[in-house]
């Protein structure tokens, strides 16, 4: 479904992504883990069109993405829930969600889709008339996910959804991601919280300084000693220091 071949991305003079090959199959839940600064966010921004790739190809269901503007990519069925949530603080929860479906505005199924989001996140329905800026961090993350889902994506890109959230909230989000995936949406999850990522995803890639250094089923990676040392051992330190 999504296929990155030999992808290179430059940031100014910096070679941020180097010859990355990555694939997400129909209905699959894939994770991408790596340390802060490894290039994970750059990779997602490149997929969704916010950043132009330098070399290589980016194909989604056969269509080449590397020259498309973000709005065209959204229309193909890729929703990107960005790191740091980026909800529109001065707009209401409902307005945030409805704009999530901007790429398919006018579609008849919008009321139904909104109901579905409210069913997934009942808190959002309670707060639908509040402005997003008044929500708690966890609620904002739910809103950001909900907004991405309103685009009715075939592929959902999630960037650090657990960042800075209480463990209870992270648990709740994890349940939601599994459910969405089971309902048929493919997911590419980017996480520093490797424990969570490896538990949710069926396959995982490990990114270090812009290159994929390991890939495999999550089960294999969990038992890989180098992964355990680098990503699971120091985990408590790292999540504590997030942001």
């Amino acid at each position, binding site marked *: 479904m999504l296929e990155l071949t030999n992808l290179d991305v430059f940031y100014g003079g910096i070679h941020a992504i180097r010859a990355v090959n990555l694939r997400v199959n129909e209905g699959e839940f894939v994770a991408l883990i790596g340390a802060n600064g490894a290039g994970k966010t750059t990779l997602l921004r490149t997929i*969704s*069109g*916010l950043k132009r790739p330098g070399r290589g190809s980016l194909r989604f269901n056969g269509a080449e993405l590397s020259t498309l*503007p*973000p*709005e065209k990519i*959204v*229309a193909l069925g890729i*929703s*990107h*829930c*960005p790191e740091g949530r*980026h*909800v*529109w*603080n*001065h*707009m209401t929860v409902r*307005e945030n969600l*409805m*704009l*999530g*479906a*901007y*790429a398919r*505005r006018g579609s008849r199924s919008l009321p139904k889709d909104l109901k579905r989001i409210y069913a997934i996140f009942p808190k959002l329905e309670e707060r639908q008339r509040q402005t997003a800026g008044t929500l708690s961090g966890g609620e904002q993350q739910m809103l950001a996910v909900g*907004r*991405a889902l*309103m*685009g009715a994506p075939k592929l959902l890109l999630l960037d650090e959804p657990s960042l800075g959230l209480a463990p209870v909230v992270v648990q709740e989000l994890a349940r939601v991601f599994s459910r969405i995936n089971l309902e048929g949406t493919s997911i590419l999850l980017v996480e520093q919280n490797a424990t969570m990522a490896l538990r949710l995803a069926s396959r995982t890639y490990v990114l270090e300084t812009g290159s994929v250094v390991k890939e495999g089923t999550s089960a294999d990676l969990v038992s890989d000693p180098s992964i355990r040392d680098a990503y699971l051992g120091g985990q408590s330190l790292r999540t504590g220091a997030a942001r």
Partner: protein
Amino acid sequence: MGQLAQQLLNGVVMGGIYALSALGLTMVYGMMNIVNVAHGELYMLGALFTYYLTSTLGLPYLPSVLAALVLVALIGGAMERSSLRRIRGQTMVVTTLVTLGWSLILQNVSLILTGGIPRYITSPFPETSLVLGGLQIAPSRLFAALAAGAVIVLTHLFLQKTVLGNAMRASFQDKDAASLVGINVGLIYMLTFALGAALAALSGGLLGTISYVDPSMGAKGLMKSFVVVTIGGMGSFIGAIFGGLILGIVEALAAAYISSAYKDFIGFIMVVVILLFLPSGLFGKRERYA
């Protein structure tokens, strides 16, 4: 007592008119963070186009205003596309100077093309003032004030209730997030500036029946629009209404009870005093300028 009532009535009606003429300015500032010095020239072009459409082509008044609005919106879109787009994200001084350059171009090219003769747009309203309990008011002025209210409400509803309006607000609050839900942010920037230009043109077309129309009319009115927008809080519609009303009433009362030579002086001092106590005007959003 009769004078006070008449002055207040004039002040309120003028206040509505001032609010209308400042609307595009405050919207472009609030959304795009651009102090559009060319606002006055867009206003002037609205009036000038309306004049030519009514007098030269002989079109009826309201369709002419609408056609002028469309033409000026196109000019506004072209301004954004050709120059403002390239300096997005630069500091305010830089964007302000680009609009200053545009104001020089628009004003002087209009001057060259029209010869600068002052004119009136023929008003579709009767010239005889209405008399309400001993108070006089001109129908064209009353219409302009009412239209001002209607335009302000409609623009507000557009931004709050329509998908496009929401997309505009979203784009200026968080550009990346807007791109990620499929909003063409570049297009939205252009449309927003064009909308600001259209509002300026609309006020020019509506007020051209009260004031005269010439290429320098925009520059003359710009200072007042600045006062209105600043008092009310930059970017706030409700602020523009209150700013306009305050300026209209203060001008009226200053002329009646203090000295008309100091009328404008009082307006500017009021800006300073209000800002010292309310650093972002009456209704300005604080967090953006902290």
